[in-house]
């Protein structure tokens, strides 16, 4: 199988109305594992994710996949902080991405059932997705992103509004996805979660990558004093 990775960002900057949101950012996304992005609010985590996903217009620099963009777009998934539910049943929400790709009906049904089971919503197939609880919605959003078997999955604080049990469900799904070979990039405010999941990590501050590295070194021996302060729980401005 050809892979869309690695993803290379070279001197990427995003400016809106004269204000620099991120940049310059230069980084490479390798082929495996879970990358966790941490940083205070407004540091540019979400913008960075959107730049990688290709839905944010960049002002300067280049974002390059191993394959042409039009090809790469088909192999990515994105999960939003607040899950966006289509006003349809749970089953139809899961079917939707497959229908967009004109996948055969029998296969669509099979995959829909499989994923409904994996995300624990197989008893709720005919319920309107808008009536699910917060945790169920986020599981459904995750299932809907993974059902297309993306090579890369971006998640923007997927557990921000969830309780412990729901967070554990989401993390279990993510670990399983990593085992299946999905490359995961995720932002979080929860340092515990970051430690549990990360293979490597990025620390964003004021729109630039302040520090990056393999998880162990990143969490156990942070180099910059800002990251140390962040881990201590200090408020960094």
């Amino acid at each position, binding site marked *: 199988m050809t892979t869309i990775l690695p993803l290379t960002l070279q001197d990427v900057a995003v400016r809106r109305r004269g204000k620099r949101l991120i940049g310059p950012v230069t980084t490479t996304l390798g082929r495996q594992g879970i990358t966790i992005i941490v940083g205070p609010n407004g540091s540019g985590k979400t913008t960075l994710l959107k730049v990688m*996903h290709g*839905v944010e217009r960049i002002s300067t620099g280049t974002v390059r996949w191993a394959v042409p963009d039009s090809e790469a*777009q*088909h192999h990515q*998934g*994105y999960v*939003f902080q607040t899950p*966006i539910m*289509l*006003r*349809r049943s749970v089953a139809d929400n899961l079917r*939707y*991405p497959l229908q*967009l790709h004109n996948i055969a009906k029998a296969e669509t049904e099979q995959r829909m059932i499989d994923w409904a089971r994996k995300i624990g919503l197989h008893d709720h197939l005919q319920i*309107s997705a808008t*009536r699910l609880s917060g945790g169920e919605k986020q599981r459904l959003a995750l299932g809907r992103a993974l059902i297309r078997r993306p090579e890369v999955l971006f998640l923007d604080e997927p557990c921000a509004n969830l309780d412990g049990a729901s967070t554990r469900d989401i993390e279990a799904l993510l670990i399983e996805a990593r085992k299946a070979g999905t490359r995961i990039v995720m932002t979080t405010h929860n340092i515990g979660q970051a430690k549990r999941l990360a293979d490597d990590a990025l620390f964003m501050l004021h729109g630039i990558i302040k520090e990056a590295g393999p998880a162990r070194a990143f969490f156990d021996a942070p180099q910059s004093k800002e990251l140390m302060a962040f881990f201590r729980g200090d408020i960094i401005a």
Partner: protein
Amino acid sequence: MNDIFDGLAAAFWLVVSFDPELIEISLRSLQVTLGALVLSCAIALPLGTFLAIRRFRYRRLTISVLNALMGLPPVVVGLIVYILLSRSGPFGVLGLLFTPTAMVIAQVIIITPLIASITHQAMRELWAEYHDLLISLNTSQWQRVKTLVWDGRRNLLTAALAGFGRGIGEVGAIMIVGGNIDNATRVLTTAIALETGKGDFALALALGFVLIALAIGVNVSIHWLSRTEREGRW
């Protein structure tokens, strides 16, 4: 007050006796307005949705014009369609003036802006909700329209019913382009105008009540068919 009771009684007898003339003009009313409604929806639903999701240069202007056209005076529409379809007009050769087709054309012009405008309002909200997801899923323009139309179908039903309401009760335009010809282009509203002019208030009122009943009947049956307002739906 007596006139109203006479009208109710007359309406009752017209209906229970299956008055052939009443049935004919009622059916023609339905035929013209439903025909116009189908054509209008085919134009207005995609148009309104398109306006909600697509950014282009004269978008604001288009939307303002559309909103303004909602208040288009039917008599003027009738007059213009009349001129276009008359013998000496550009479409005179088609021989459409004073036919139900001409009435459908006039009604399409009247109700399309209304349906498109309501569609646009409803779709704009839905699009704001879906925007990020549909962009992220890399959907084509056409797939977006289809998704929004399908998931917003209940709102679109409201738009269509508003169009139907405006069409079925409309008299100015269809009077001009249809001519209120007995057995050919007479519909409920033009018949009411005629009977009122002749001073036959009971018959005019009877036709009026039939018209109202028809409008309510169509609304209720469409709601029933589409299962809105049921428990667990919205």
